[in-house]
């Protein structure tokens, strides 16, 4: 066999360790699963952010006045007159941009998701609702409205949605923190698994490492060999996990699109999410590489 070095790989891609050792064979699979889960966790974080932003946009700057029906009166015209009295009290207030009394059809539509088509025929003692858009979003504006309405209808309920929204924010924040926690645990699990896989590889390639060591290889050189090898395996797995994650998001999006509107908030994953997803795969591969590098370095330091 005549020797030719024309096909030799460039130095940066060459490794003195055999690729595909049994201990590292599962790294691509592990990476694929980890990246898949991290993408789902990050998309979860983004979904919660998107939901929060949507809710915030829809409720901030609005106030709802509920004028309850008179107890057991059945006198709809008296109830209507109380609502209009409250509406008139809002006229000319600096805090109010617009104020509108919701019609019966609109109330029926609001109840439809719960009561269905029978909502209009239910003849329920519903409060009249006045939808107010604020000109001024301060708490003083809500106080001014409350004072004005209570002057004419003392039992009217002024709802600036803050209490309801604060609870939702708390709940959503909880889910968000949970998603971040899951992502962190996945990353930690990935690092730990790479540590153990690398240690197993160290045992597997002990002869090779000894030879490199005895011919004067610096620790960094040997660790670099492992790091290159791990990065190669990890990147392949991460790319697979990325594709799997994107496919899962597409499937979830398709399923969510089939659900009746009104039950699920309208959620879109922003451009920053889609831009960041490939970096998740790259960052995971880099993390695996760095973990392998420092694991080998620590192990070699225990040798002479």
């Amino acid at each position, binding site marked *: 066999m005549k*020797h030719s070095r024309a096909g030799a790989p460039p130095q940066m891609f060459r490794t003195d360790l055999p690729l595909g050792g049994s201990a590292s064979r599962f790294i691509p699979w592990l990476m694929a699963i980890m990246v898949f889960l991290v993408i789902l966790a990050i998309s979860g974080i983004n979904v919660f952010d998107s939901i929060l932003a949507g809710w915030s946009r829809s409720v901030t700057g609005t106030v709802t006045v509920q004028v309850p029906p008179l107890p057991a009166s059945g006198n709809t015209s008296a109830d209507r007159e109380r609502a209009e009295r409250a509406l008139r009290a809002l006229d000319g207030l600096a805090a109010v941009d617009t104020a509108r009394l919701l019609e019966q059809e609109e109330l029926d539509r609001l109840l439809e998701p719960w009561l269905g088509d029978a909502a209009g025929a239910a003849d329920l003692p519903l409060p009249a609702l006045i939808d107010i858009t604020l000109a001024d979003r301060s708490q003083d504006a809500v106080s001014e409205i409350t004072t004005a309405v209570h002057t004419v209808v003392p039992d009217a309920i002024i709802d600036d949605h803050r209490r309801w929204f604060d609870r939702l924010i708390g709940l959503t924040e909880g889910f968000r923190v949970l998603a971040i926690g899951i992502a962190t645990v996945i990353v930690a699990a990935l690092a730990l698994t790479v540590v153990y896989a690398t240690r197993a590889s160290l045992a597997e390639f002990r002869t090779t490492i000894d030879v*490199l060591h005895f011919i004067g290889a610096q620790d960094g050189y040997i660790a670099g060999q492992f790091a290159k090898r791990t990065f190669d395996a990890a990147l392949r797995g991460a790319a697979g996990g990325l594709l799997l994650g994107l496919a899962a998001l597409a499937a979830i999006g398709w399923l969510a699109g089939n659900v009746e509107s009104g039950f699920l908030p309208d959620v879109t994953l922003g451009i920053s999410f889609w831009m960041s997803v490939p970096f998740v795969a790259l960052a995971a591969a880099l993390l695996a590489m760095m973990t392998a590098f420092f694991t080998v370095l620590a192990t070699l330091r225990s040798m002479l």
Partner: protein
Amino acid sequence: MPYTIFWWSRKADFELKPQPSLRRNFAAPGSGSDHIDTLAPAVELSAVGLQYDDGPDVLNGIDLTLRPGSFHFLTGPSGAGKTSLLSLLYLAQRPTRGSVTLFGTNTTSAPRAALPGIRRQVGVVFQDFRLLQHLSAFDNVALPLRVAGTAEAEIKNNVSELLSWVGLADDMDALPPVLSGGQQQRVAIARAVVNRPRLILADEPTGNVDDAIAERLMQLFMELNKLGASVIIATHNQLLVDRFGFPRLSLSDGQLNETQPGGGATADV
């Protein structure tokens, strides 16, 4: 130093072509090494003792000084500690007692970071070759140069020349499993000497080859010795020791004795 390495041209049985540029590429032992004292003894062992766990002393109170350019056989019965002594010299382990000084650096007390530089001055031929099975003959021989950060162009020239020198010009891309024992032996020796070490340690380098190849390999070590390297060859082969007549270091019961070819002990030990 007026080195000559045309020895193979005088050996018809080696069937190698002269490689004049080897004179340039293999100019001086240890060339390129930093912080190495070129005038210091190659090896200084002082009261060296070695013990594995709570077992008996494998080596006990060994003193030895080898000057640069010396050539010694290391002999002794199986289990006498020859491989252990060599392992101390290629810095695979530290002695339990005493100190090991190579090229003027006390390796027992030297910081760990200094050891790779010293190891690069030591070429080791392992008894079992320890070739990396997944690397070609070329890449195995190139390994010491690569870990030293030598440029690929230079590696290509030097390794090709050296493999041609040891008669493996047509087997550079062959993996070790397809090479014969003698060919693997030559790859292992080429790897040990490719970066021109100042100390060559060979553990039974002729143990797996026939007499003709053993003779050739000895000629190779002698030529490298002429180029300035100190050589220690551990062997059981009494015929080889008698045939070449270099001083003998004999290990027995953990003690080391040196015998000159005429039979007299020297003051080094």
